[in-house]
């Protein structure tokens, strides 16, 4: 049986590098007389969050909403396009290059184009988040659909299965582990994507809070927004990993 002290020791065991980093940060600020406008001490950042819990909670909720929407749409789109490529070689030629192009173009350059298509608003923020989470799913699921269990394809050939049956009963189940990897990769990224999009064109969320804080030279607030975003990213990654562990029990 694990005691509370044991748990605490376990947590310390895993998080000591972070704690060491925080301690070094605090020491650096004090020792080098770094003004708060350049870099605030960690304690100042924590106090900033603690004294304005409502502000950060509301912003975090908005960011989580955008990230979830982006993740959901991005993964759905990635899976759908991967299936399209699996189904017809024509789609492979038509989709692979634009998908890679979209991914290798910086979001900052893509945004005006997305905004022109969708308008300047929440939908564009979500679309930007989608653009970032889409590619890992598209690539991983695309290869997963082809990574079939040995001889399984032969069985389907012998039984004369339809394309649909092959997709639903063979290729998709075979691609589940890839989907779970894609989820794990994209979950933390989706927070980053939401943050970036909010920072550039959003009127809400942590990204906006960060931008506003910068405009008003409120460095502790900007860092606090970044801190909350970091916590969200780590939480998103942990949640996705949990989900992946559960999901693996159901995959082939």
């Amino acid at each position, binding site marked *: 049986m694990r005691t509370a002290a044991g748990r605490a020791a376990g947590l310390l065991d895993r998080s000591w590098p972070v704690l060491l980093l925080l301690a070094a940060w605090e020491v650096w600020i004090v020792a080098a007389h770094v*003004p*708060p*406008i*350049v870099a605030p001490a960690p304690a100042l950042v924590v106090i900033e969050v603690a004294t304005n819990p409502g502000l950060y909670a509301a912003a975090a909720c908005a960011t989580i909403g955008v990230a979830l929407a982006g993740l959901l749409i991005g993964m759905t789109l990635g899976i759908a396009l991967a299936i399209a490529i699996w189904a017809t070689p024509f789609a492979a030629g038509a989709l692979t290059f634009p998908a890679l192009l979209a991914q290798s173009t910086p979001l900052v350059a893509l945004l*005006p184009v997305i905004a022109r298509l969708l308008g300047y608003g929440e939908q564009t923020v979500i679309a930007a988040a989608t653009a970032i989470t889409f590619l890992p799913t598209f690539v991983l699921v695309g290869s997963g659909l082809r990574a079939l269990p040995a001889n399984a394809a032969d069985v389907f050939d012998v039984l004369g299965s339809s394309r649909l049956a092959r997709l639903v009963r063979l290729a998709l189940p075979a691609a589940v582990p890839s989907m779970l990897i894609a989820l794990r990769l994209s979950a933390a990224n989706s927070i980053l994507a939401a943050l970036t999009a909010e*920072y550039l064109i959003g*009127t809400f969320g942590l990204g906006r809070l960060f931008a*506003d804080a910068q405009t008003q*030279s409120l460095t502790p607030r900007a860092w606090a927004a970044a801190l909350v975003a970091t916590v969200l990213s780590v939480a998103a990654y942990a949640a996705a990993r949990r989900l992946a562990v559960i999901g693996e029990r159901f995959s082939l």
Partner: protein
Amino acid sequence: MIDRRLFLAGATAALGTATLRPARAATTVTTQLQWIKDVQNAAWWIADTNGYFRAEGIEATELAGGPTLASIPAVVAAGRADVGIAQFEQIIDANAQGEDFVIFAVLYQTDPAALLSLPAHPVRTARDILGKRIGLQQGAHVFIDAIMKLNHLPATYTEVVVGFDPAPLVEGACDAYLCFVTNQPLTLAARHVPCITAGFDELGYHTYTDVLFCTREYLTKNRATLVHFVRALQRGWAENARDPALAARLATTVYGASLGLDLQQQIGLNRAQIPLMEGPPTRAHGRMWIDPAHVAGPVYATLRATGRINLPPVGRIVDTSILIDAGRA
């Protein structure tokens, strides 16, 4: 030691003994620019090219700014630049957080910030903002909120976050667009798009855009250097007013050569900014003048409307002695 040499150099120059060159050991002054290295910093390029800095014993270097630079006051606070160019509000905010910056000169007498609109949905007054979609760069909503408050109007407008390209206005994604009168209106005019501008001063928002500041410590230790620096810049601005094409050429071919700037656009921008840098105060006191009475009155009233309380005594944040000494040459 260097300060004394510079002082002597200044003194000899003041005596009119122009043949005596200042000491060879020039003092380096690094400026963190507010924007990219374009014609907006005309005086720096002219003073460098024409030797005004050298004549004052200054070795000037510049760091580019621009929209990706998080905080100019932070750059100066960290000691990476001696002098910074920022919004007046940024210096107030920085000092409220414990910094001790001093503003010693200013570039614009009239704020170039304005709301740009098309004749179909004109915005000429603060009242016209009501119910409209206003295209703003990220974070700039605080200005419009303050304008509404200063005019005793509710902040009922829709914020549309846009970039530095006025395309959303022309496309109809917003009814008005926060611009610099030296930039986007000229772009639209070149494309024969008729447009209306309402300057921030006309809308009731009074501030100083592009103030020159440094830490109090730097000012105390390098007073003579700053006087020489400002004097070289004043000569640069004077020359710029005489020949607006010179700095535009320097920006496009030398100092901002890697930016791919357009010469005609830079000339246009320069011609538009020159009148904004002049006015009765500069005619009375010299170029780059900052008026403490204007700060204490309209500027502080504006800052209070933005929610900034506990404003410092003006003498604590604005020091006109550098400008006064520079004018004594």
